[in-house]
């Protein structure tokens, strides 16, 4: 790792900064939720930060992503504004969707973010659609589709991967294996161990990477997106990771042990990156403290923005169902 760190130090510092921001956003959401400031329910990304950051790093503004119910990290990595994300979580009119989406459906199509999604397995089919648009219009774009390993059991995910393969679409399927689908361990939900074989059956390159290492995710995602951009068709990326919090905030987590969580925490994507950066000498303790403080201030601002924003006009609830009056 030291050589790699030295070679990519500037990028890694920037990636560290973004991952810290995601962690800070999620940590704050957790406490806001506990304090009953946020309606609905939230699924947090803490532990998985290296995947969104590593995978989206090489994307251009006009590339696309599809996301999941656990989508805050993907949104930040795709360049969405924490102010408007936080406002959406509060249900305020300044939120990305004017208070209509909440945590589970944040989208900004102009920014290439085709939506967090409350339906497990829906994202990959939408990504195939984006891939078809790109192909139809001969555009230089790709679509990254994030989904949990649990979604691998949905028929529509298989159909989508197959269609992407048949049509040679510029889509990268990014499976985040955080070991559990709700309360059930991954190994009880899939008859074949590991997910690389899923790439083989749809004739697409598949790679399993350490999802706790932003460098590994970055490298593999770069290979896959370059392939997609150059007409090489879809790929499957499997990122091994872990979510520290419950499936949703408030989940009693009876299905796993504290020891297991601790074991994964030792590989924490943010802390391990911090240590390697410190070790390499590219940053010192002050730099790290500054980065962390900056993230914390940025999220303070986002929370202030959200709190100060107004709730939407109730009448707006009935607007925007259709694109035109008939």
């Amino acid at each position, binding site marked *: 790792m030291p050589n790699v760190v030295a070679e990519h130090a500037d990028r890694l510092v920037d990636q560290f900064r973004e991952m810290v921001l995601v962690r800070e956003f999620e940590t704050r959401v957790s406490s806001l939720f506990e304090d009953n400031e946020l*309606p*609905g*329910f939230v699924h947090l990304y803490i532990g998985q930060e290296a995947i969104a950051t590593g995978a989206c790093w090489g994307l251009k503004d006009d590339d696309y992503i599809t996301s999941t119910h656990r989508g805050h990290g993907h949104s930040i990595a795709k360049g969405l504004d924490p102010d408007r994300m936080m406002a959406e979580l509060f*249900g*305020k009119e300044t*939120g990305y*969707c004017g*208070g*209509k*989406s*909440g945590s*589970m*459906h944040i989208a900004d199509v102009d920014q290439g973010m085709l939506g967090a*999604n*409350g*339906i*497990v*397995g829906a994202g990959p089919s939408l990504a195939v659609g984006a891939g078809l648009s790109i192909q139809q219009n001969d555009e230089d774009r790709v679509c990254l589709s994030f989904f949990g390993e*649990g*979604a691998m*059991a*949905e*028929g*529509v995910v298989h159909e989508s991967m197959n269609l992407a393969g048949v049509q040679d679409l510029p889509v990268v399927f990014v499976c985040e294996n955080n070991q559990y*689908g*709700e*309360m*059930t361990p991954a190994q*009880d*939900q*899939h008859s074949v161990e590991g997910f690389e074989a899923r790439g083989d059956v749809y004739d697409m390159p598949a790679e399993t990477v350490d999802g706790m290492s932003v460098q590994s995710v970055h490298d593999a995602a770069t290979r896959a997106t370059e392939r997609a951009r150059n007409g090489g068709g879809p790929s499957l990326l499997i990122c091994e990771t872990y979510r520290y919090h419950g499936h949703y905030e408030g989940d009693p987590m*009876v*299905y796993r042990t504290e020891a297991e969580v601790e074991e994964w925490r030792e590989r924490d994507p943010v802390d391990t990156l911090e240590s390697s950066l410190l070790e390499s000498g590219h940053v010192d303790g002050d730099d790290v403290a500054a980065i962390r403080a900056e993230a914390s201030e940025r999220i303070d601002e986002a929370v202030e923005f959200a709190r100060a924003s107004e*709730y*939407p006009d*109730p*009448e*707006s*609830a*009935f607007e925007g*169902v259709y694109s035109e009056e008939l």
Partner: protein
Amino acid sequence: MPEKSMRNAINDALSEEMQRDDSTYLIGQDVGEPGGSFAVTRGLYDEFEEGRVIDTPISEAAIVGSSAGAGMTGSRPIAEIMYADFMGLAADQVMNQAGLFKYMFGGDVTVPITIRTVNGGPGANAAAQHSKSLHGLFMHMPGVRVVLASTPHDSKGLLKSAIRCDDPVVFFEHMELYNREAEVPEKSYKIPLGEADVEREGDDVTVVATQKMFYHARDVAEQLAGEISVELINPRTVKPLDTETLVESAKKTGRVVVADESVVQNGPASYIAERIQQEAFYHLEAPVEVVGVDDTPIPFSPPLTEAVVPDDEDIETAIRDMPRV
């Protein structure tokens, strides 16, 4: 009589029916050891021998499709789909499979399956993909029975009948009603499918209300007592619909409000109103009024949700706006 939550009443029905009939089994996501997403199946995994309570991957189409296949081949599966919204992924298995077989195969086969699923969520700000009331979709499918669970007492009795029914039944629970407690008899009892319940008798106006709207309507009826006499009816089963009870009441009061949390357009409340208007036309003082969601997805933000989803105020307004002689 002891009080029980709707959650526990449903759990009792499952347990009793699974004890009674070896051909039953439970299948769904997290229904086994974890006890279900809404803790409805808690304890059943330990109560029954291995294989009777099956945890599945996230595969709605296979959960319902396999139930249709098992139903045809001697089993009596009870499937759980976590939210009605996710029934979209399993719609084919009801619409083109389970619901059709008896008729399409010439009458020789039965598909005795129960699909438990969950309406609601707007009150919990669960937003557009976790909040819909979707029984209307399944009311539209020939060969399929549709039951709405509203009270702990009814839920238990209706679910037992649903499980014993030889037709596919989609049994809709409601996310915001699981904690409701009410008296539930300890002894085993069934409530036949297709019988409405007159919860409260009255003379001025009939309110037909389902699930969460039933509770809103009950509160309103109580508040209006002395001023307007409300007859409150819970249809309990919407397919078959107990038109007779509804029409009888409509003839008596001459005014009817139907309140249901689904989208109004082409939905269950509109259908119920149509049946009543058809059969009680000459007895009505006014067109039947319908309360529901006005062709809008369920938004997230509390003020938006409140605007879209009907509550007691909407029911009261509908009652007060009825012309009175």
